[in-house]
């Protein structure tokens, strides 16, 4: 931890969360993790896929099998898939949005496991017209092929849920009812760099669960209370059960929209979102301990330390490919310095943090 840039912030966060836990305000977070003697141990599966024409259902079935996801646990259930549908751009949709073939493969795999109902839900941040996203991402074809329904989470009926993260000033989050009513929520993210958050993976993807009708477009309230902090809070409160990250072709540079395609050839899966995101970051050549919202996770949400993540399928080194980071983008500059070990030794500040 000595090199972690967030040590002071993490200490304050630890005290804050512990006090909240003690006062009974804190809900929904596995507090027992704090006091258990053994460390975290979460499994993450890395599957290889050269392209979207591969048998992706087989890759995802292999991941489910290695992670102990069985028909006994899913038979008859209702599963909500939350893809990353960000932007309309037919030309670059394949590297901006979760690819429709990955969604198709997931639906096929879930049905093989006996899932009764699959719903696709998204509350896009930039586009109120979700139908144009369905069209330009190609997801509409998957809906026709599979019969899966789509729910626009921006306008869904909501319920108030106590903020289980507790980092931001938000006491509760208004979440679509379907998110709490579904038996399983899967965050189906894209492997991308991000110009505000550093990376956008399974945790950041859950921003799209929060309804625009209550938080604005593009999720204005969350940006105001702190982007990194609210990524943590939303992920903690939504409590997704599983993550599948489409890293077959991701995005590097000025993500999540204006970057360049980057082929990584992987599908990353797991039950614990911080562990999945930490693995994805390592595949991208980015230290997860330097991503603000991931650095906060080991207290309550999940491990990011390599020693606490049991890697299934391919080893990280076999698939690692550095995603380009841009010097002129503040958050990426620090990640780049960490990667190239070119920290100057003199203090530099970015937002709340001093390096």
């Amino acid at each position, binding site marked *: 931890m000595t090199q972690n840039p967030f040590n002071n912030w993490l200490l304050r966060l630890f005290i804050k969360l512990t006090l909240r836990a003690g006062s009974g305000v804190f809900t929904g977070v596995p507090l027992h993790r704090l006091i258990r003697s053994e460390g975290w141990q979460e499994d993450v599966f890395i599957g290889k896929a050269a392209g979207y024409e591969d048998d992706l259902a087989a890759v995802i079935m292999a991941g489910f099998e290695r992670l102990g996801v069985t028909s006994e646990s899913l038979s008859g259930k209702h599963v909500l898939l939350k893809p990353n549908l960000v932007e309309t751009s037919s030309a670059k949709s394949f590297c901006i949005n979760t690819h429709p073939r990955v969604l198709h493969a997931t639906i096929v795999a879930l049905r093989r496991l006996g899932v009764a109902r699959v719903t696709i839900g998204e509350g896009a941040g930039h586009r109120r*017209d979700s139908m144009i996203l369905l069209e330009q991402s190609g997801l509409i074809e998957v809906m*026709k092929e599979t019969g899966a329904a789509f729910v626009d989470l921006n306008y869904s009926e909501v319920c*108030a849920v106590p903020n289980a993260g507790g980092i931001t000033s938000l006491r509760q989050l208004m979440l679509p009812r379907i998110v709490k009513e579904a038996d399983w929520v899967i965050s189906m993210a894209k492997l991308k760099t991000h110009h505000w958050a550093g990376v956008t993976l399974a945790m950041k993807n859950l921003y799209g669960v929060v309804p625009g009708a209550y938080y604005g477009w593009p999720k204005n309230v969350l940006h105001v209370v702190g982007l990194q902090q609210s990524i943590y809070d939303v992920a903690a409160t939504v409590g997704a059960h599983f993550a599948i990250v489409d890293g077959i072709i991701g995005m590097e540079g000025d993500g999540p929209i204006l970057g360049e395609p980057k082929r990584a050839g992987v599908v990353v899966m797991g039950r614990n979102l911080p562990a999945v995101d930490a693995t994805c970051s390592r595949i991208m050549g980015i230290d997860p301990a330097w991503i603000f919202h991931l650095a906060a996770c080991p207290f309550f949400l999940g491990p990011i330390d390599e020693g606490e993540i049991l890697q299934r399928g391919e080893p990280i080194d076999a698939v690692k490919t550095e995603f380009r980071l841009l010097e002129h983008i503040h958050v990426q500059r620090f990640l780049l310095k960490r990667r190239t070990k070119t920290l100057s030794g003199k203090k530099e500040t970015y937002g709340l943090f001093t390096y």
Partner: protein
Amino acid sequence: MNNIRKWLTELERRGVPGGGFAGQPGGSYRPDATAWAALALESWKECLPQVAAARDRLVASQLKDGRVAIDPTYPQAFWPTAEAILLWHGSPPHQSSLKRAVDFLLRTSGVHYRWKRDDVVGHDTSIKGWPWIEKTHSWVEPTAMNLLALELTGQSGHPRAQEARRMLLNRQLESGGWNYGNTKTYCLELLPSMESTGLALHALAEHLEENKVRSSLAYLEAEMPKTRTPLWLGWSLLGMSAWKRRPREAEEWITESLERQKDYGSYDTAWIALLLLAAQSTAGVIYALQRPETVEAS
């Protein structure tokens, strides 16, 4: 227009007990869906008792300070206020509510701050408009909607309206069109959206010379023939109609969009209503809703 009766009936079916409309069949009352559904039904002179009940339901939703929020337990989301104003306009029993709503808009703005040319974002963050949600920055669509509401109620000359139009112009993309409201981040121009463009163009119509928005009009003209999704098509048609450039195929495209619910699933009530209103508003929303009453702001 083909099958119009089917879609008007669909709107009617989404009415809820106590007046107003839900976002989907069987759903709960939602203020914005209520305003749009009632505007569409009224424009087609259908279900007028339901329209009157919708106006009353919105009055019941209005908070003391004049705003109409998406949810009374979440007053910070006040963006449906403009839509309520559109519906209350011209209805004598609702003039007091309308006046309070207009006053609320005129004394409310987003969060603004000084902008420097080397900032990460490309737009001038100091020019005031309106936000979706209280205590956040101003964005294109709520600003344009509020401008339409002020225009309809005779407040288009108010200094807040003038500044908001300046804000919209500042948020126009160099290559044409608008998006939610960020022109550039880290020096790269972001992508346009037809819905934001249609709304912004509509709000600016009759206040600007065409050469100031020519590239945005060209963007919509190029994209409309291949677009059938509801918000993008609906607002594009309304925006172009306000600039007297309504395409001849408008009704045909609207029908096609409505029929696509077979594949997409049921549209939100507000989206169906927007398309039905666009079908009737051949010169834009303001012209279609124009009635003699105006409101004096205090």
